[in-house]
């Protein structure tokens, strides 16, 4: 018995050693590149860079106060009003015209209606071809070919629609592009989730004379609600970070009035200006403090008050 126990404990020891050895590098990576980097980022938010000594020194919450004032004197082109309103506008548009239609498109594919296989591939294409390639094609089309088409077909003159002079049209074409290329993954994941719904559930609904819209709203969406919530949460998380479209179109030349949080943080980080790092970290920390409870609350509320399968 004792021999058996000893053998078991040796076996367990071997497993533990192997486990520790194999985990050592990945855990070390996370300790340095996740924990250290994020804690350093928090610390950086309370500092200011001294050019002469080349060191960061503690300034308390000064950076946060300046950010709250809306226009930070040491942050290039920072204007909280523009940034906040643009970010929220894009988020709302994406939610309304990207998120909801994606559920309908997925339903079409799930039901295997005519050409659904073709649409699935077409919707996924923008996810396969690089966004920057689509940006080059789309921008040249809107600037050069679209005015010609609109004049020939409708007699409408379109000039300077995408060169930032006309704020409304520039915003429209940017938001349209963001929504247009964003369907792929959503549709694929929703239709994937829908495909796991039992056929008998759908068939019993059909036997009871349920119409397609009722089927979608009262049967399909509640059954894939987990996936929908996950995507909504990802969407909320992305409010402050995933807005690269503007950078792809205009690079550093974007007018301040179109700035978003995602654009601003990325653009200023690419300048590699050490004096700006503390302000960017402070802005990032503020957004994190805002985004975390919003994300968790949204998740909780969507799960609690979302549709049920009852």
């Amino acid at each position, binding site marked *: 018995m004792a021999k058996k126990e000893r053998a078991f404990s040796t076996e367990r020891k071997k497993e*533990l050693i*192997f*486990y520790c050895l*194999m*985990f050592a*590098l*990945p855990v070390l*990576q*996370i300790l*340095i*590149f996740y924990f250290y*980097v*994020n804690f350093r*980022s928090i610390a*950086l938010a309370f500092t200011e860079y001294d050019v002469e000594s080349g060191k960061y020194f503690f300034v308390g919450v000064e950076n946060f106060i300046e950010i709250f004032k809306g226009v930070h004197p040491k942050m290039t082109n920072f204007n909280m009003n523009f940034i906040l309103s643009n970010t929220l506008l894009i988020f709302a548009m994406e939610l309304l015209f990207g998120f909801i*239609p994606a559920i*309908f*498109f997925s339903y*079409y594919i799930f*039901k295997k*209606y*005519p*050409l659904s296989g073709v649409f699935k*591939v*077409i919707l996924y*294409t923008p996810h*396969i*071809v*690089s966004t*920057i*390639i689509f940006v*080059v*094609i789309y*921008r*040249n*089309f809107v600037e*050069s*070919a679209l005015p*010609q088409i609109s004049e020939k077909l409708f007699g409408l003159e379109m000039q300077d629609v995408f060169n930032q002079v006309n704020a409304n049209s520039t915003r429209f074409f940017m938001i349209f592009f963001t929504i*247009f290329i964003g369907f792929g993954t959503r549709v*694929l994941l929703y239709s*994937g*989730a829908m495909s796991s719904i039992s056929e008998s559930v759908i068939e019993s609904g059909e036997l009871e004379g349920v*119409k*397609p*819209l009722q089927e979608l709203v009262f049967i399909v969406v509640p059954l894939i609600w987990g996936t929908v919530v*996950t995507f909504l949460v990802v969407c909320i*998380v992305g409010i402050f970070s995933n807005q690269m479209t503007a950078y792809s179109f205009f*690079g550093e030349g974007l007018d301040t009035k179109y700035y978003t949080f995602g654009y601003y*943080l*990325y653009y200023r*980080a*690419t300048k590699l200006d*050490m004096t700006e*790092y503390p302000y960017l*970290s402070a802005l*990032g920390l503020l*957004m*994190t403090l805002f985004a*975390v409870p919003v994300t968790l609350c949204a998740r909780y509320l969507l799960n609690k008050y979302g549709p049920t399968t009852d």
Partner: protein
Amino acid sequence: MKNGKVKQNRGVLAWILLFFLLLYSIILVGLLVWAIFVSLKTPTMWDDDKVGMPVGAPWDWQWINYIKVFKAFTFVEGPLANGSYIQASFLTMAVNSLLYAGGGAFVSTFACCIGAYLTARYKFKFSKVVYLFVVIAMVVPIIGSTPSMLLLLDRLGLYQTLFSVYIMKFNFLDMYFLVFFAVFDALPKDYAEASKIDGASEFQIMFKIMLPLALPTFATVMLIKFIELWNGYDFVLLYLRSYPTLSYGIYKLQKMNSPEMEHVTMRISASLLVAIPILALFIAFRNKIMGNVTMGGVKE
């Protein structure tokens, strides 16, 4: 009812959706076809007509534009702080793309796979902590840590090196960790137990028995990650400017003053040329890429 199946009542909704999906497809395919036409035009043809097909028979179109792009598309950036320039030919950018996307995709997939294997197979307390931490890290957003990362890389002397990218990507805080976890958790333990009785070490069990069983998932995840990295330029612009990739090159091309590449026809030819390898990859593996992705991850 027909053949035991309920006849589908498509209704108005299906027609409305069909209309919008057709509209979407026409715009998307139209854009791509338009781009192909533009890439096959001479500058004069473009100035005359910015919408239609190139003039003449297809064999007379400017297919040579693609060869011109291959030869003339050179990335130039600078002068840098030390007065030097970063220069790269199309071929160099292609090699950089392969090293960045191929290497990055491999280490990232490998880290997820290893982390998930250890967490799923060994029921130590730490495994539970790791699983919980991955889920939390995925849900809780941390914004604005780029400056801190840049400072760290600079201090370690790793900034702008391929090695730094591989280290950064060797991270299992990823959705695909959960995918691999599901795969390893579902694998029967008998294989490992039988091998153990035969005298196999933990290392052998992992690399010779368990990981090969997850190889199809590994290949799919790596392929998806490869495409993502190949297409992205934002990471390269921040951390790897000395190794310009093709996507970064296309981004820069919009702002570059190069007499050979300045014309719209050449810029669009370059963009399409860069898209070709990924499109070929997608066509070859589309069932694997599209068929296997679900919210839970990758279906076998």
